[in-house]
């Protein structure tokens, strides 16, 4: 990790609140839905209907990277029956709306996840699952897993837990539906705009970089 010259963070000792705030500013990901004002009144009627339709047909590409993948069958099958919310599986990245990252990501799988994310078509949403994607979880000191997913691809909703139960997974989906309806979800455009920032972070971790130069889909 290269140090930010403007950062006031010391590495030793307990930092003050000011330093923590500065660290959060340095760290904060580029694509967030926080700043957007896009509620029902400000939307055109077509966009409102589009968002309504999108939120009820979520095709999920469950990329089973970690142990969290075991919760997906329970969520999809008859007891919790996620299909009543319009949530169902998609076969390929091109057909999917949601990329679901279930659990820890090693550097090896991160490379594949980025390729998969870039191949998905807009509008695309990312649902990160489990504490490993948030801060590394129990792999916080591993030599081979990343610790904060939103540095590498934009994330719409995080579901906390180790592991999150199907109830929390469905709650996360409902939060995403709410964001979609308000027009606050979907960061594909923001990712393209801030591609340099994301590429720099990705290349710090992925040593042998063999991605195509242009990202034009």
């Amino acid at each position, binding site marked *: *990790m290269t140090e930010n010259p403007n950062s006031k963070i010391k590495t030793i000792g*307990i*930092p003050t609140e000011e*330093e*923590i705030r500065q*660290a*959060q500013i*340095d*760290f904060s990901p580029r694509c967030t839905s926080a700043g957007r004002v896009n509620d029902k009144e400000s939307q055109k009627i077509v966009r409102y209907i589009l968002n309504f339709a999108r939120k009820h047909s979520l095709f999920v590409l469950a990329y089973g990277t970690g142990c969290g993948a075991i919760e997906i069958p329970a969520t999809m099958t008859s007891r919790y029956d996620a299909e009543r919310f319009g949530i169902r599986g998609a076969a390929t990245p091109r057909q999917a709306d949601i990329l679901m990252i279930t659990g820890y990501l090693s*550097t*090896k799988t991160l*490379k594949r996840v980025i390729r998969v994310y870039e191949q998905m078509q807009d509008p695309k949403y990312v649902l990160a699952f489990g504490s490993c994607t*948030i*801060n*590394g979880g129990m792999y*916080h*000191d*591993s*030599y*081979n*897993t*990343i*610790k*904060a997913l939103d*540095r590498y691809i934009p994330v719409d909703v995080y579901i906390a837990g180790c592991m999150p139960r199907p109830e929390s997974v469905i709650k996360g989906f409902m939060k995403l539906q709410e964001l979609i309806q308000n027009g606050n979800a979907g960061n594909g455009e923001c990712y393209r705009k801030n591609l340099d920032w994301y590429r720099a*972070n990705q290349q*710090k*971790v*992925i*040593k*042998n970089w063999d991605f195509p130069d242009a990202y034009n889909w």
Partner: protein
Amino acid sequence: MNNLENIIHKIKAAFHLEAQQKRDNQLRVDVDKNLVSSVLLYLKNQLGFIHLNHISCVDWIEDNQFELVYIIWNPQTKLTVMLHTRIDRENPEMENIDTIWDQAHTYEREMREMYGIEFPGLEAPKEFILEDWSGIPPMRRDFDTKKYAQETYQTRPGRENARDVREELMKRSGEELPDFAKKYSRD
């Protein structure tokens, strides 16, 4: 007839090796590096230890040595033999035994990647689990995992002033932290 003692005598007669009994069904044999394959072949063909459970590696950084442990099992008598051997840590090289057991191939590939032990004649791609790894193999004890993780992967801020729950409770009640708990302290 005691099966284990019989095996101890047979190993002693064939190789002049002292086998120690560790448990009711477990033997330990310390072998020179060059003798490993012949002892394994003898145990497999003559004494019925036909199953290779595991090959593991121990990093004895103080002795500048690696220890390889071959764990083999006899399904008829339910006995286990652990074959220990020490190899040099500077130029670690060990005989390839995937002609005796096919599954040794996987363990040898893993040890080559995680400890940097070379197995001449092992026909496999260089990479097994890790990808684009440069630097010292990660399972060696001189590899500082925590330092590497902190340098390479960015940590989400916000938990820097997190306190140890045990210490906080001890301070509140005015007690001393017991010695065994001090090594887990955050400070």
